């Protein structure tokens, strides 16, 4: 049926992404609570979880081979849903406690790791033992004695996939620190410090803001890590602290729009990124419901769109192109026509197959490679 190519070819990554499913309402007015805030496959990819700003979790399960309904194989259907968090008010500190689900992490089946990192705090990282819920270990604390000396905050953190004593955390200044919990109880001193040197002559008011890292993810192999800053995705070799081994431009055309993006706060949007199962490709979101994939071996990239218009069963997704300037070609979209309210902040890639889940505000799109 499909001509040549397709994802089955082991030599390359010529994917042909097709629409599979979309979940969520088609409302014009999106309620704050319905905004998806996290998407995560479990270790086998048979389960897919979403969390939203209203504190609710929905878990989908992949359908197995079914002779009666052959087309339903591979479809994700609702398995369970529950209210995970509720809004609270801390009367002592006069603080609202948000019910938004920031992150979902599935526990491995064998449960080799009994610990969990909680990294919502901008200034501290705490380590929790799964069976001890009334206290935690503080392993990183960057809160200055005097808050007026605050120059940098923690933006993301993750445990190494294989070495359970190793973790990384990123900062608002574009740096990443790797810590080994075996060397000291309080990891204020890092084992490794990753930072790309900056050309001081190119520094501007926006430099620090756009260098702030919004997400950090280890590769499945554990040899690399990927960081997402406002305009790019960078791949780092854990053995080389001086600079990333790869830089992929997500939407470089936004560099000449930074003034407006600062005024409308979009410059502070926190995009996530993810690896495919074999670590040969990476994916991240952008605006206008666009998302980008980068093939690390062929150095090719593609821009795709999550939209209801391309939501016919098994319809192939057409690559999109943004016209940065000059003459706009027929199927291109100009930078000024992009909808900055349609942000794809959260994406997930199945750990084994070429299946991806893309959160577009209040809708969840699932796409599959045609060869699946």
């Amino acid at each position, binding site marked *: 049926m499909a001509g040549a190519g397709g994802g089955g070819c082991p030599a390359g990554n010529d994917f042909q992404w097709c629409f599979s499913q979309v979940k969520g*309402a088609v409302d014009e007015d999106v309620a704050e609570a319905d905004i998806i805030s996290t998407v995560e496959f479990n270790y086998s990819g048979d389960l897919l979880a979403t969390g939203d700003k209203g504190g609710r979790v929905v878990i989908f399960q992949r359908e197995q081979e079914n002779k009666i309904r052959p087309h339903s194989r591979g479809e994700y259907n609702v398995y369970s849903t529950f209210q995970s968090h509720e809004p609270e008010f801390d009367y002592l500190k006069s603080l609202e406690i948000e019910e938004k689900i920031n992150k979902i992490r599935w526990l491995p089946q064998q449960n080799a790791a009994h610990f969990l990192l909680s990294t919502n705090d901008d200034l501290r990282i705490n380590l929790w033992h799964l069976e001890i819920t009334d206290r935690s270990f503080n392993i990183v604390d960057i809160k200055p004695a005097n808050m007026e000396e605050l120059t940098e905050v923690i933006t993301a953190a993750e445990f190494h996939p294989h070495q359970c004593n190793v973790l990384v955390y990123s900062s608002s200044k574009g740096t990443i620190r790797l810590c080994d919990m075996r060397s000291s109880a309080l990891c204020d001193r890092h084992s490794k410090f990753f930072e790309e040197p900056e050309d001081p002559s190119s520094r501007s008011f926006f430099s620090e803001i756009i260098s702030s890292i919004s997400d950090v993810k280890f590769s499945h192999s554990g040899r690399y890590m990927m960081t997402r800053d406002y305009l790019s995705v960078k791949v780092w070799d854990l053995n080389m602290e001086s600079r990333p081994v790869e830089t992929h431009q997500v939407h*470089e055309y936004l560099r000449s729009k930074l003034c407006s993006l600062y005024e409308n706060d979009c410059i502070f949007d926190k995009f996530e990124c993810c690896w495919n199962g074999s670590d040969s490709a990476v994916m991240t979101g952008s605006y206008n419901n666009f998302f980008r994939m980068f093939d690390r071996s062929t150095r090719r990239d593609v821009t795709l769109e999550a939209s209801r218009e391309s939501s016919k069963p098994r319809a192939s997704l057409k690559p999109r192109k943004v016209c940065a300037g000059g003459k706009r070609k027929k199927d291109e979209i100009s930078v000024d026509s992009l909808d900055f309210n349609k942000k794809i902040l959260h994406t997930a890639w199945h750990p084994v197959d070429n299946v991806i889940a893309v959160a577009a505000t209040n809708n969840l799109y699932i796409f599959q490679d045609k060869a699946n």
Partner: protein
Amino acid sequence: MSQKLEEENPAEETGEEKQDTQEKEGILPERAEEAKLKAKYPSLGQKPGGSDFLMKRLQKGQKYFDSGDYNMAKAKMKNKQLPSAGPDKNLVTGDHIPTPQDLPQRKSSLVTSKLAG
């Protein structure tokens, strides 16, 4: 017809070369954007960093209602009107004391997620 991943820059060899070229071209747009911003907001500081800026980002627009402050202010003002939060309700300074009426209602979503519908 097999759809290959689109080659956006077929002439570019490596990612690094591509990045260098774009960075050189990128110096001018970023500086131009900076000039635009400073023209609009002349009182803007040299760089956005600093503790005030970071603390504002940390707050994420949360509103603080302190019943102690509120009652003290009420006692001081006596018959006068309390200063309300004003049109920019996200801005909380020493002079603006959010009143219970200014704070949005906090309630949980009792409705099932539409993703599960």
